[in-house]
C-alpha cells in the first residue's frame, strides 16, 4: 500500500485549517491596531483601506511559522511523523487557507479600486461633455 505523505488523515486537516485562519485573522488584527496606533502618534491620517487585509505575504509567512511552532508545542509534529507525514504536509495545510484569504482580499482591494475607476470613467466623460 502506497501511503501519501501530504494528504493528512482526519481530524488534522480541520485542525490546521482552523488554526491557519485564526492566526491569519489575529495577525491582520494586530497589524491594523499597530498601524492605527502609529498613525495616531504621528498625527497622520490613515486611509481606511490600509487597515484591510490583503497584499501582505509576510502575514502568510508568519501564519505558517506560528502554526508550525504550535504544532511542535502540542507534539502534533511527532505524532504525524510517526504516521508518515513530514513538516511539508503541515506547512501545506497551514499555507493554503492563509494564502487563499490573502489572495482573495488582495484581489478584492485592487478589484474594488479598478471597479471604482471604471465607474468613474463615464462620469468623467459626462462632466467633460457638460463642461464643453
Amino acid at each position: 500500500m502506497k501511503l501519501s505523505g501530504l494528504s493528512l488523515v482526519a481530524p488534522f486537516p480541520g485542525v490546521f485549517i482552523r488554526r491557519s485562519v485564526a492566526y491569519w485573522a489575529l495577525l491582520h488584527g494586530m497589524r491594523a491596531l499597530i498601524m492605527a496606533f502609529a498613525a495616531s502618534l504621528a498625527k497622520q491620517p490613515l486611509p481606511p483601506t490600509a487597515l484591510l487585509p490583503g497584499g501582505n505575504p509576510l502575514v502568510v509567512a508568519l501564519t505558517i511559522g506560528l502554526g508550525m511552532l504550535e504544532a511542535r508545542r502540542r507534539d502534533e509534529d511527532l505524532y504525524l511523523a510517526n504516521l508518515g507525514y513530514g513538516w511539508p504536509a503541515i506547512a501545506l495545510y497551514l499555507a493554503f487557507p492563509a494564502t487563499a484569504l490573502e489572495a482573495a482580499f488582495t484581489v478584492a482591494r485592487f478589484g474594488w479600486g479598478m471597479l471604482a475607476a471604471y465607474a468613474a470613467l463615464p462620469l468623467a466623460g459626462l462632466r467633460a461633455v457638460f463642461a464643453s
Partner: protein
Amino acid sequence: MSAPPEALLVADSIGKRFGEHKVLSAATLAAHRGVVTALVGRNGSGKSTLLRIMSGLMAPDYGILRVRGRVYTRTRLSRMAREGLFLLPADRCTLSRTLTLRQHLDTMRRRFALPAADEVVEELKIAHLLDRYVGTYSGGERRRAELALALARAPEVLLADEPFLGITPADTELFIDAFRALARRGTAVVLTGHEVPFILAVADRVTWITAGTTRPLGDPEAARRDFQFRRDYLGTGAA
C-alpha cells in the same frame, strides 16, 4: 541450523558531533525481525542520539542507514514511518495533547488500515484513558498510552528510548509483555534504558555503547558475564 533473523534496519558506522563534543565515532546497530535488542550505556554515551539518527529524527555527520536493502545517508522520521518504523522518544510525547487516546487510535487505524485496537486497550488496562485528552494524563499514563499506540501500529521496527523511565513495577511487567508480544509478531524492537533488570529481562541481544562506538555483547547472560561491561557499566556489585 536456522537462518539468522532478517536485519530490517541497520545503522552502519555512524558518527555524530555536537560542537566540539564527539558523541558517536563509529556506532553500528542492527534491528532484526522478531528480536529485542537492548542498547545500554552510560549517560551521555549516545544511546538516544543513535536512536534519533536511526529513526531519521536527526542527521548523522557520516555513516549510512540501511532499510531492507535501501541505503540512506540521511532520511526523515516521516519517510521511515511509511517504511514501517515507530519511534517512542524519551524527551518528547508521541501523542498530541489536544486529542484523546481514542482519536489517536482511530487516526492510526485509518492511516494504516489496521484492525481495531480493543485488545491492546484491554491488555494495557487503559480503557479509562480512551476519552480523556492526552494533556490530562500523568507521566505513567502517557507512557502506557504511547505504548498502546505502538502496539496498535504493530510496526516493522520499534525504537523505544528509555521506555521504562518513570514506570511503576506493575506497569513494567505490562511493558515487558508488550515488547515480547511485538517481537513474537515479527517486530524488530530496539530499546534503551538504565533499568538493567527489566532491560535484560526483555532483551534477546545486548549492545553496549561506549566511547562513541558500539559493542555487541550477545544475549543477556553473555552480557552479564562480560568482564569489561560488568566493570564499566553494571558496577562491581552486579551479580
